[in-house]
């Protein structure tokens, strides 16, 4: 170990700002880009559930027909997150 006590570890030989801001940004970057999509997944499923329930009166498409969506099916404003 390069440090004899915790205080030295935090100080990083005078480079505390440099090292800890980089590792801090790294942690934020990881969290945002892992937790973000996971949370969005749950939100999408929740919204779809609601949407399907609202459309329940309209007969759904038959199982044999796969989605005809083009590469960029226009999403409504509420879905554009």
């Amino acid at each position: 170990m390069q440090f004899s006590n915790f205080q030295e570890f935090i100080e990083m030989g005078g480079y505390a700002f440099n090292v800890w801001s980089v590792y801090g940004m790294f942690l934020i970057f990881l969290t945002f880009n892992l937790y973000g999509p996971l949370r969005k997944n749950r939100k999408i499923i929740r919204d779809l559930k609601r949407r399907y329930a609202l459309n329940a009166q309209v007969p759904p498409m038959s199982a044999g027909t796969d989605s005809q969506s083009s590469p960029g099916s226009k999403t409504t404003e509420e879905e554009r997150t």
Partner: protein
Amino acid sequence: MDWTWFHKWGSPKWFYELSGKWLPWLVGVMVTCLLVGVTWALLFVPQDYQQGLTNRIFYVHVPVASISLAFFPLMAMAGTVFLVWRMKLADVVLKVAAPLGAWFTALALASGSIWGVDTWGTWWVWDGRLTSLLLQFFLLLGVVSLRTALEDSEGAARACALLSIVGCINVVVIKYSVDWWNTLHQPSTNFTLATDQANGPEIWVPLIFMIVAVYLFFAISLILSTRNEILQREKRAQWVMDLVAKS
């Protein structure tokens, strides 16, 4: 030659289901490598005789920066597959890769700057590598803006694919800039197995852990975003309705 595997891979449903099975394993390996890498880098790597303890930044900056160079090649390949074979999934990957690439590039630039402020004595210099990496950041933001400006249409998909292919030229510049021009950013390094060398295994083994961890993170984040985009695009498909009903 039997190409059914290629078209099977292009099925959004197949991708969604398979990636769902692989994700826990990928996350497990990523977290392990990350913990080993970060602990080793922060606590055990000997300090540099010139830079002191700022060499810890090396273990974040290098993996993030080198993986940020993978985005344009990935997007160019996805774009080409989309343009040639009309594979929907390829366009999904193309769409979600761009913002993630911007994040990677931004972190590479920021970590490099913060490292340089005390070791080089400056936050920024118009060095070959720094300038071309900054250009990559703007190009990625450009791809994202292009997608939004053309309202995520068929035209947007084609335009983004073309810009991604063109953007690969910049990646060649970034990679070789340190060999072509003798400006500030250090040249490429050779890592050796000999322990008495300046860059022996105690320096580069933690780097391997960090590169694996960040690479897996790249894959995981990309997969998660791709899954989300698939759900939104395929919302009228039966398999999505069944999935939502089950959850």
